[in-house]
């Protein structure tokens, strides 16, 4: 195995790991505040990618400019969706499972809608930064005597990583330093108690839904930059990565999701490198099942056994 490939896997691990962390964070906001595991989260993210795609191919808008537009649009859509779907759910016998099923329905609708609008083909975002790649460093004699190997990073990945870092820092600041952020964390800890201290739980929950949707949209735009093409049917795989991350990090725990995302990013990149493709595809699922059985509370988090 060449040293260059190992470096590439490590860089890929960080870039994708941070994206996964972001997916985990947004899923966790919902899981924590609303007790909703969003089955349709993958489709929200794909919708974000298509949002950037449509603005770029339709209006020629730079993907980085579509990022804030996407964030706002998805925030508004998310709040709307909350008032449409969630309050009715609270009355059902088993809100957790019902919401999972409900979002499953939403995901089927979103897949169908996206397939209808963009057709079933995968679509590349034909956008490149200049220069396309940045040479990080050169490894002497990587491929034998006199054949040097260069460790390259696509510029798009660097840009995505930097934006991602800013968002994570911003989120941390929001969760730990601002009043609404603290309220969100408080709601995760005890949904009943925060209503006693005068917080409007519906408003807070709709904020949480908006925030999570908005983050999903942002993730989608970032993902469109770092993966070769957008697939309307790819949502389930993304949602599954999200589930792995939140289960690994502990349900409803934003910091846990950060670590778990990066861990999973590395695991994924290295299993792609070292295992046959067939086996690598199953690693995520196997981790998921193993963690739930061996350490169901994740790295942090609550007990789940009946």
């Amino acid at each position: 195995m060449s040293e260059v490939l190992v470096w590439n896997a490590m860089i890929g691990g960080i870039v994708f790991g941070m994206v996964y962390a972001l997916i985990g964070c947004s899923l966790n906001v919902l899981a924590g505040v609303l007790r909703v595991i969003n089955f349709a989260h993958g489709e929200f993210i794909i919708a974000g990618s298509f949002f950037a795609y449509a603005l770029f191919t339709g209006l020629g808008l730079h993907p980085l400019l579509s990022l804030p537009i996407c964030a706002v649009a998805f925030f508004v859509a998310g709040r709307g969706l909350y008032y449409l779907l969630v309050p009715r759910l609270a009355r059902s016998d088993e809100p957790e499972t019902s919401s999972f099923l409900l979002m499953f329905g939403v995901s089927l609708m979103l897949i169908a809608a996206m397939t209808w609008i963009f057709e079933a083909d995968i679509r590349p975002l034909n956008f490149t930064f200049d220069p396309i790649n940045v040479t990080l460093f050169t490894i002497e004699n990587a491929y034998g005597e006199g054949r040097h190997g260069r460790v390259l990073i696509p510029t798009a990945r660097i840009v995505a990583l930097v934006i991602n870092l800013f968002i994570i820092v911003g989120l941390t600041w929001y969760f730990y330093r601002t009043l609404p952020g603290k309220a969100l964390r408080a709601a995760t800890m005890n949904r009943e108690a925060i209503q006693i201290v005068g917080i409007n739980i519906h408003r807070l929950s709709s904020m949480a839904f908006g925030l999570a949707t908005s983050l999903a949209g942002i993730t989608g735009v970032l993902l469109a930059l770092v993966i070769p093409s957008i697939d309307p049917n790819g949502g389930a795989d993304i949602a599954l990565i999200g589930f792995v991350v939140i289960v690994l990090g502990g349900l409803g725990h934003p910091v846990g999701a950060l670590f778990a995302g990066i861990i999973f990013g590395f695991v994924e990149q290295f299993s792609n490198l070292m295992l046959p493709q067939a086996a690598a595809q199953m690693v995520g699922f196997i981790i998921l099942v193993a963690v739930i059985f061996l350490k169901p509370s994740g790295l942090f988090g609550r007990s789940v056994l009946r």
Partner: protein
Amino acid sequence: MSSLTSMDEAKASRIRHTLWFGLIGVVVLWFGSIPILDGNQSLYFSLMLWVTMATSFNIIAGFTGYMPFGFVAFYGMGTYTAAILVSIVKVSPYIAIPASGLAGVLIALLFAPTLRLGGIYFAIVSLSLAVILQRIMGLAPEDITGGSGGLNLGQHTVREQGFYAMLIVLVAALATVTWLTRSRLGKALRAIRDDAQAADAMGINVQRSRLYAWLLSALFASLCGGIQAWFTGALDPVTAFDVLITAKTVIYAMAGGLGTVTGPVIGTVILVWVDELIWRQFPVLNSFLLGLIIALLILFMPRGIIGTLMQKYPRCRRLIM
């Protein structure tokens, strides 16, 4: 007074059962004559298949409250077992189908530890296990599972035999849930669903009862898969483990009403007809409408048609199982 009401109840129960068994008898005669009368075999086959799937889903979801999002795992497992046995080992379908049921039960035993998990974790794990199985089937050596291309067993099977096998399994599944509603096990399961701790305190063996429901549910779902392979003669990992199979099963069962005997039957009959007659024309719209129906059901009619009827008109209970 109490003797009167119990006599009343006994009478109501007799009426219910006469109606129900009469209905099953009519269905057997009607469906049994389809291949002879040259009817639309595919339509009636898919009706029987989905009624059986919804009914077996009802055993685990309706009677115990679990939501297996990877329910298709059993179906897919049955499909593959039957297909491998028939096309590669070259045994008769009459041996392969019971074997496919057995395979489903074995897989369910293997997955039984998941029953310890709470609501959402159970759903996620169930979903992942189904995907793992699907990948394994797609990635296994081609001379065993046919790889991603799947298997073809058309030349070894007769469609009509598959049709009648489905009819037998359908009746067996309906008989099983009917028995469940009256049996000790069925009552234990409902008690557990409503309050596991209280049921435990009453001396019900919670783990074992749940396991029985789980195995029964898996048995019928994998039989469905096996017979589907027999009837259609071809399969591949994508369609055999398609998440839409889980989706349809859940919708059909919920539309009628989980936890009732007739609910999944009614729900399936209505929706399969609608599906075959209207949505087939528009494949993309089809899955959109499936999603929409799930969402609307969860939001507005979580108890389904029969469940809502029973809630609004309690006197219906006398007539409906």
